[in-house]
């Protein structure tokens, strides 16, 4: 979605237009939910975080800086909420990585589910800073520059964090035999 479109919708949201807010919700619900899901490894928690994110967005339109891009704002809120949620549920410690069951049948769906579960298990073994950049890069498809905007860190740091994260993730996946 273009920045102009986002801006128009946000202007309408600030004026209390619920339909405009629902349009933003339609656009961002799935990526926000998936961001939270990858950070938290729980659909229930991701659902709650997604709900919190959109309520915060709705309540704080007044403080949104229009010079910033909306996506960087909403994903930053999503990541912060996810990290806060992890703290609440005492999941900050990396989880033990267990070998992923091999696919029991030829069904593509099962393979896809196993791939997703295996990658998710590996993701949960790395620190949240690293997990964050992997999620932004690989599951949301952001560029270095966009990740830099979302995390408010220099691009150079984005690169070094991402490259380290990949190495750690590769090691984790290797331990499960997935890579």
């Amino acid at each position, binding site marked *: 979605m273009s920045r102009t479109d986002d801006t128009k919708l946000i202007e309408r949201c600030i004026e*209390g237009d*619920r339909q405009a*807010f*629902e349009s933003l*919700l*339609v656009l961002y*619900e*799935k*990526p926000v*939910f*998936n961001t939270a*899901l990858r950070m938290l490894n729980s*659909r229930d928690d*991701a*659902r709650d975080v*997604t*709900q919190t994110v*959109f*309520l915060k967005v*709705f*309540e704080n339109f007044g403080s949104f800086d229009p010079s910033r891009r909306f996506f960087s704002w909403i994903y930053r809120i999503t990541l912060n909420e996810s990290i806060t949620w992890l703290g609440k549920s005492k999941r900050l410690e990396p989880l033990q990585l267990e070998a992923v069951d091999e696919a029991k049948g030829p069904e593509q769906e099962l393979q*896809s589910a196993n*791939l*997703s579960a295996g*990658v*998710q298990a590996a993701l949960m073994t790395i620190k949240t800073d690293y997990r964050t950049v*992997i999620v932004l*890069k*690989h*599951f949301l498809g952001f*560029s*270095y520059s966009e990740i830099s905007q979302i995390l408010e860190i220099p691009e150079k740091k984005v*690169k070094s964090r*991402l*490259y380290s994260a*990949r190495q750690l*993730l*590769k090691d984790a*996946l290797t331990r499960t035999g*997935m*890579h």
Partner: protein
Amino acid sequence: MATEQKYTDLMNAAIDGEIGDVESAELQSYLDDSAEGRAMNEQLANLCSTLDRVEAEEPPPHLRHLIMSSLSPSKTAQESTGLLQTLLAAPVLKYAATFAAGVVLSLTLVNSGQISNTAFDDVTKLVGTVAKPVDTGLVSSVSINLADIAGTVSLRNTASMLILDFDLFAKRPIEIEADYTDRTIWFNGFAQLESSGTTVSAQAGKVTLAMQGKRRYAVYLHNEGGRNTTIRLRFLDGGEVVHEARLEYAPDK
């Protein structure tokens, strides 16, 4: 010998499509000469390919509705009033409505889908009947957040009317029973916004609704004199009660 950090960085940048022509040529030259570099580059490409094959998951189907239902009253007040004003007064929107004045101790079965095409298309008559009490006040509200049912039910009041405002999503067909303790209160009508398919039946002291999917509708209860009452809501899925809630109207307190 370990791969130099410089080339590791270039491999990552190349995978991400964020590498310039000069750097790309430099990387290619390195890979041509280094078996170790090629192996590492392949591993990196495999990793990224694995990550990119992970499919995004669909959010729970009711999540969007749940979020919209959870918006703060201060921001939604205008909208909520607007809905009721729409249901009560605006003739431009399509909706199904019926007012069954005088339904006391008798069973009424209403299929809103049928009504919308027949007797109540002329909404101006509807306006003439109940347009005055558009200034409704929110009395109380309950939220439902189950795996298969989500949304809100609000109780509003106006002069001699109580209005149950249902804003719900149900994955499967459900029934909702609304019992009111004061049996002198009677079912006075039903209106539905932009949808059909909700079935309403009324008898003394009780209204039963059947619905599925996303629905927004209102049930009107005549409450002459503004008497106290408690409305007990029971949500049934397959005949089993899956949720209960209460809405209280107590102006005397």
